[in-house]
């Protein structure tokens, strides 16, 4: 199947971006270079085209529609105007997707999901919703730009007004752009101060151009988005989390509300009690050589796990990564990443790898 293109495709090509398939979309991986874009996001502000991600609008009572059972987070406790990160699980507690739920009104929700899982997420939601509800997949008519970096507020304030300063972490508001209603949330996946802007897709190109008129703002690709999120220890769906792993094994338990009922709860409780067979660890090397997805993780010459994400860390100047391992290994333990004739000694560390981000 041919990869889809966002409304900004021709703009990326005109800027000289390297384009590559990602989740069924042809997306910009880099413009100037991953290291420069990474540094610019950590120090200034970058804009990312995230139009490929999925958005659903659900009009429903969370309890009576069954929506509350589909998401691990406590969504009924969310005041309107707030958003929360959580997961959808199957009966075995495998992660169908990670997502952000926005409570637009008491009975109105926006659900933001990964690009590659839009169809399966829609199926899963619809299969589990009952009673009165209205579900709309608005992915194709919704544009999304992420503005990330310590100077993102300065850049966004000039376009949307000072009201944007009122947004605190994981809250959102409605704003106008060219007489169009936009949603802006104080969220992101880089660890930095940042905003995610949802705008009707036919207006995303003019917003993109307007943002880039600001000399502080540079375009950044998915290449540095990946190194930024990895430095924060944030999992990437399809790599670090998938149907094979639960929030317990991925260490994402804090996004699960055990006081409520949800799909996969019994399996998750059982796993919590017995301890996960494998769990996600974070490792760091003294070397610049990167562990890659699929490389083996060894402890005293015995294979104990597999790397799920690995990269050179632009901020730290060494390689970092994540992977699942079996056994009782703890922070500070030495492990060896091996693949063919590559050997990379690593040590288990706590996340985040990079602690200089300034989200608030």
């Amino acid at each position, binding site marked *: 199947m041919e990869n889809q293109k966002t409304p900004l495709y021709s703009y990326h090509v005109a800027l000289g971006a390297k384009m590559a398939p990602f989740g069924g979309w042809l997306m910009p991986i880099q413009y100037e270079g991953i290291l420069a874009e990474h540094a610019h996001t950590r120090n200034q502000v970058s804009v990312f085209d995230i139009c490929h991600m999925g958005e659903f609008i659900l009009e429903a009572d969370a309890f009576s529609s069954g929506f509350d059972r589909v998401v691990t987070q406590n969504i009924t406790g969310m005041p309107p105007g707030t958003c929360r990160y959580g997961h959808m699980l199957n009966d075995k507690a495998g992660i169908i997707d990670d997502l952000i739920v926005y409570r637009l009104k008491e009975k109105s929700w926006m659900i933001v999901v990964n690009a590659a899982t839009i169809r399966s997420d829609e199926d899963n939601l619809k299969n589990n919703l009952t009673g009165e509800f209205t579900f709309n997949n608005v992915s194709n008519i919704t544009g999304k730009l992420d503005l990330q970096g310590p100077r993102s507020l300065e850049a966004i304030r000039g376009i949307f007004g000072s009201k944007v300063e009122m947004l605190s972490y994981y809250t959102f508001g409605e704003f106008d752009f060219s007489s169009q209603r936009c949603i802006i949330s104080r969220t992101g996946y880089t660890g930095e101060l940042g905003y995610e802007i949802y705008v009707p897709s036919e207006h995303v190109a003019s917003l993109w151009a307007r943002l880039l008129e600001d000399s502080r703002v540079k375009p950044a690709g998915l290449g540095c988005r990946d190194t930024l999120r990895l430095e924060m220890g944030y999992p990437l769906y399809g790599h670090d989390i998938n149907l094979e792993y639960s929030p317990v094994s991925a260490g994402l338990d804090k996004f699960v509300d055990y006081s409520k009922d949800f799909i996969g709860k019994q399996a998750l409780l059982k796993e919590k009690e017995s301890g996960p067979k494998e769990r996600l660890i974070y490792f760091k090397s003294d070397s610049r*050589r990167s562990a890659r997805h699929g490389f083996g993780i060894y402890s005293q010459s015995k294979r104990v796990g597999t790397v799920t994400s690995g990269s050179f860390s632009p901020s730290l100047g060494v390689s970092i990564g994540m992977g699942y391992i079996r056994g009782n290994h703890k922070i500070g333990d030495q492990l060896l990443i091996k693949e063919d004739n590559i050997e990379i000694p690593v040590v288990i560390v706590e996340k985040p790898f990079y602690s200089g981000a300034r989200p608030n």
Partner: protein
Amino acid sequence: MNIPENLLYTKDHEWARVEGKTAYVGITDYAQGSLGDITFVDLPKVGKALKQADPAAVVESVKAASDVYSPFSGTVLSVNPELASHPELVNKSCYEKGFFFVIQLDNEQEKAKLMDNNAYQVYLEGLSK
């Protein structure tokens, strides 16, 4: 695209600057541009014997790792010590400061299997079609 005329080129985008019975080896401007920011280079051991087209080194960018093949059969005489701490030299100066290693040639006839700058230019144009 910078393709100096005094060098020989392989289809895998290595260059070789032959000086008598030795050759400096690196990767081309096209290769470094395709890889993006280079973050690590794994160089061969000095004294290692290589056959023409053997994997000799590994170059890693942020997103990927690629093998670098020897343009000649021979013995590795020396490697570029700067690349351990400054792999970005491959991006900044791929034909000079970013060379990978120096090899002593076993067989100068192997030059015939490599391309000159004009042939490499034509080869690259073919790749982009």
